[in-house]
């Protein structure tokens, strides 16, 4: 474990990779290697403290003259808006929802990790760091992850001070539980609604700043273009979704906290409105998109019930702490009432294959094994397409051991939700679960300061690629969103803003006019194609392609096929789209059309990235790269790098920039949960 790999943290422990395979040949251009220009050095435990000191301060009197735009009001966006507002900066906050409180962080259920070691079970900042790097399959940056683990404890303090009602024990102190893939109890939670409680805390802190006049909120607004002037991000073009007005907002810095792009799969656990548009518009303006193929498929979602399905619902994987996962040993038992299947005819496959981690193996393993047993014909529940897509998550042992009230107290909202959706009572009949797209580790490339390669453009939370490598541990998304928003960004953006306020940009400036006109003409184009198909029908088709070929298992022929299909879909989209209504009113079809157009382009890049990465790591499983046991096989010799993609133009090819991942504090190991 960690102890044996402790190191002075100064000399590299791994060599720079040399890629020999070239599966994506013909689909991309190889660009220059890149490095994080502000990567810290020195012993890992000192890096963040040192950097906070080195970064310049902004005179309090100057702060109100500095304008910061923040797009998105989830944990990363709302926390940043609140903190920067408290600091005295002039913040403009944008969200597409009718209130900042509705951002999709609200739906996170299970909890938030922090290295408090309240249980005295051997946890520490180093262990959280180590677990996160290992869980991410050694595809994240050491320094960033260490910082994340380090500030995790501050997050809990901050949230409690704001009135976040975490679960407590009988002495009134905070309670913890263990969570997917780790052996210490470091997860703080508020029943199954932790995301909601944390977001309400951040939202209230932000609203306090709205009242104080430091934050102005723009709800029902969607960012549709980034303004880049003299190489710097200087503002955005946003559409007022109610009036349709195209607005210009200028600033000294722009922060994208716009969330992840899991909806590229159409069916996912993301909110219906979650989209990639803000990030993709920035990408097309020059911001690199890093590791776009790194997608997390969550093992414990409610299975698809039919073609009408519009989204999938996750149930917290905290359920795996008490539920046991199984399928019948024999395919012929799959139609039976599960309660009639005796113990000896059940295959508790995770406990069987991974005796030490059992049902708590990381998400990607749990997901892939569920798919494997269903592919073998041992799935349960209704037939969807040509096979049953579901496995049992059974609480009967836990109910026997702990009693129904104890289970109810932990999970009642999840059980209620399950019953509402499926019509089945999980206290009596085992739940059925199946994997679904849940989170993306990929996102816009950022440096240690969370700044993209466009100066003045910062990216936080799920929208950036930074901390989770190829796979995110449970209860770490909330941690990262709040770490970025409350503690990291406010301490890094000041280094940039110390040179501001920057020369004012006029609304008539060429760069601004161009961005505004681009938005206007795009909106007009959607409305004038006048074909036959709805934006939703294209989205659904894209989702099928992505799930089939760029989902849980990816192969070279599959990805090549997907790229061809997506290119054809793109042609059809721009020729056969039909959007009704007008540009100068609330028009949900028009909003959707813009998002689908961007998802289509992103989908192609994801496939190219997945094709290039001929290794399996974390959530990315390439059929061509597995061990004899069918486990993911990494190739550190070729792929220990971040793939940062540069937009190559509408007619051109994406340009791949590699950032080598260098480990100095811990050694890379092939992951094993056996």
């Amino acid at each position, binding site marked *: 474990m960690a102890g044996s790999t402790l190191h002075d943290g100064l000399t590299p422990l791994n060599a720079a990779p040399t890629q020999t395979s070239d599966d994506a040949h013909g689909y991309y251009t190889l660009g220059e290697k890149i490095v994080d220009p502000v990567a810290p050095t020195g012993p890992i435990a000192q890096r963040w403290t040192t950097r906070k000191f080195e970064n310049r301060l902004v005179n309090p009197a100057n702060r109100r003259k500095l304008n910061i735009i923040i797009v998105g009001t989830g944990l990363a966006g709302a*926390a940043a808006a609140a*903190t920067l507002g408290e600091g005295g900066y002039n913040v403009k906050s944008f969200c597409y*929802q*009718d*209130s900042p*409180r*509705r951002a*999709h962080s*609200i*739906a996170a259920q299970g909890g938030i990790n922090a290295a*408090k070691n309240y249980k005295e079970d051997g946890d520490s900042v180093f262990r959280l760091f180590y677990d996160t790097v290992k869980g991410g399959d050694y595809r994240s940056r050491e320094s960033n992850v260490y910082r994340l683990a380090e500030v995790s404890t501050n997050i809990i*303090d*901050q*949230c*409690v*001070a*704001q*009135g976040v*009602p*975490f*679960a*407590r024990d*009988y*002495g*009134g*102190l*905070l309670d913890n539980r263990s969570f997917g893939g780790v052996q210490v109890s470091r997860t703080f939670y508020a*029943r199954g*609604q932790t995301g*909601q*409680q944390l977001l*309400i805390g951040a939202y*209230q802190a932000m*609203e*306090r700043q*709205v*009242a104080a006049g430091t934050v102005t909120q723009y709800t029902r607004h969607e960012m549709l273009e980034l303004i880049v002037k003299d190489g710097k991000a200087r503002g955005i073009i946003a559409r007022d979704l*109610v009036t349709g007005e195209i607005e210009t907002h200028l600033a000294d810095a722009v922060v994208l906290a716009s969330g992840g792009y899991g909806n590229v799969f159409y069916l996912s656990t993301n*909110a*219906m*409105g979650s989209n990639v548009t803000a990030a993709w518009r920035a990408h097309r303006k020059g911001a690199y998109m890093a590791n776009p193929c790194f997608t997390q498929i969550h093992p414990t979602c409610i299975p698809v019930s*039919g*073609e*009408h*399905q*519009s989204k999938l619902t996750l149930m917290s994987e905290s359920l795996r702490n008490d539920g046991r996962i199984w399928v019948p040993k024999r395919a012929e038992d799959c139609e039976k009432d599960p309660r009639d299947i005796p113990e000896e005819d059940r295959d508790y496959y995770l406990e069987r294959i991974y005796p030490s981690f059992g049902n708590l193996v990381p998400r990607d393993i749990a997901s892939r094994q569920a798919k494997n047993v269903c592919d073998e014909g041992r799935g349960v529940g209704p037939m969807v397409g040509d096979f049953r897509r579901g496995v049992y998550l059974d609480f009967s042992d836990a109910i026997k051991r702990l009693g129904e009230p104890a289970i109810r107290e932990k999970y009642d909202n999840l059980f209620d*939700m399950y019953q*509402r*959706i499926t*019509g089945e009572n999980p206290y009596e009949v085992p739940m059925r679960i199946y994997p679904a797209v849940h989170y993306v580790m990929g996102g816009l490339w950022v440096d240690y300061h969370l700044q993209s390669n466009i100066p003045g453009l910062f990216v936080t939370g799920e929208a950036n690629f930074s901390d989770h490598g190829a796979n995110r541990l449970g209860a770490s998304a909330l941690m990262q969103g709040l770490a970025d928003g*409350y*503690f990291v960004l*406010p301490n890094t953006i000041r280094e940039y803003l110390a040179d501001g306020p920057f020369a004012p940009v006029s609304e008539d400036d060429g760069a601004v006019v161009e961005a505004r006109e681009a938005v206007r003409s795009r909106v007009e184009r959607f409305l004038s194609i006048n074909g036959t198909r709805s934006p939703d*029908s294209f989205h659904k088709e894209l989702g099928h392609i992505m799930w089939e070929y760029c989902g849980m298992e990816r192969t070279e022929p599959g990805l090549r096929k997907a790229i061809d299909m997506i290119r054809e879909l793109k042609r059809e989209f721009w020729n056969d789209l*039909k959007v*009704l209504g007008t540009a100068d*009113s*609330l028009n*949900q*079809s028009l909003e959707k059309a813009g998002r689908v157009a961007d998802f289509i382009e992103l989908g192609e890049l994801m496939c190219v990235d997945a094709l290039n990465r001929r290794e399996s790591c974390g959530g990315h499983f390439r059929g061509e790269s597995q061990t004899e046991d069918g486990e993911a096989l990494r190739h550190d010799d070729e792929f220990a790098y971040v793939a940062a993609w540069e937009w190559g133009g509408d007619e051109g090819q994406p340009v791949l920039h590699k950032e080598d991942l260098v480990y100095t504090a811990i050694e890379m190991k092939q992951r094993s949960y056996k």
Partner: protein
Amino acid sequence: MIGTMNLTLKIWRQPHAEAQGGMREYQVSGISEDMSFLEMLDILNEQLQEQGEEPVAFDHDCREGICGSCSLMINGQAHGPEVTTSCQLHMRSFKDGDTITIEPWRSEAFPVVKDLVVNRSAFDRIIQSGGYISANTGSAPEANSVPAPREKAMRAFNVATCIGCGACVAACPNGSASLFLGAKITHLGELPQGQPERYERIVDMVAQHDAEGFGGCTNIGECAAACPKGIPLDVISQLNKDLRTAIKAGR
């Protein structure tokens, strides 16, 4: 899977805030009982799109009952016949041949934006008036330095599950937001961290509530019956109690 239900929908259509609205009637068929209510509306909208009629606008986002976006009056009940959000209502609650009336939230403080979409920004302004604990980032003490009695923390959590959907207002004959307000007052008032601002908070928030045009509470209880998160009516008693204490103290 294709379902077997055929339904008649009567839906409020209103092109924009200033326009005159009215009920329109539509037919949908092939509805399955496993569909959510909003998936049924998706099918209607695809159908309208094919017929060249603009789809019905309605607010929705997470579709798992937690973001609070969805806001439909269904057959005169906020979020329809079950105690849940519109998005978590499933078609198994209806039967073949039913006529379903769908309207936006009905409240002066929530003006219609378009069709079934209303403007609930009044709720944000109520929170701005005091629905927070003032704790600047970085100023927090060690989390376990202040224990919070478990019972109180649990009550705080239970009422903090309010999703701000506005069903309470839509259901109330007076258009009062007392349940929403009481939930926030109780959430923050039950925690040790919420004590320093407790009485200023309530006075400011009640003043903002009234200024937004929400009505007064006359203890009818429709709000708690309609609340998809089961926020109990006693938060309004707490609200009144705290307000009385604050006023007595001359705040």
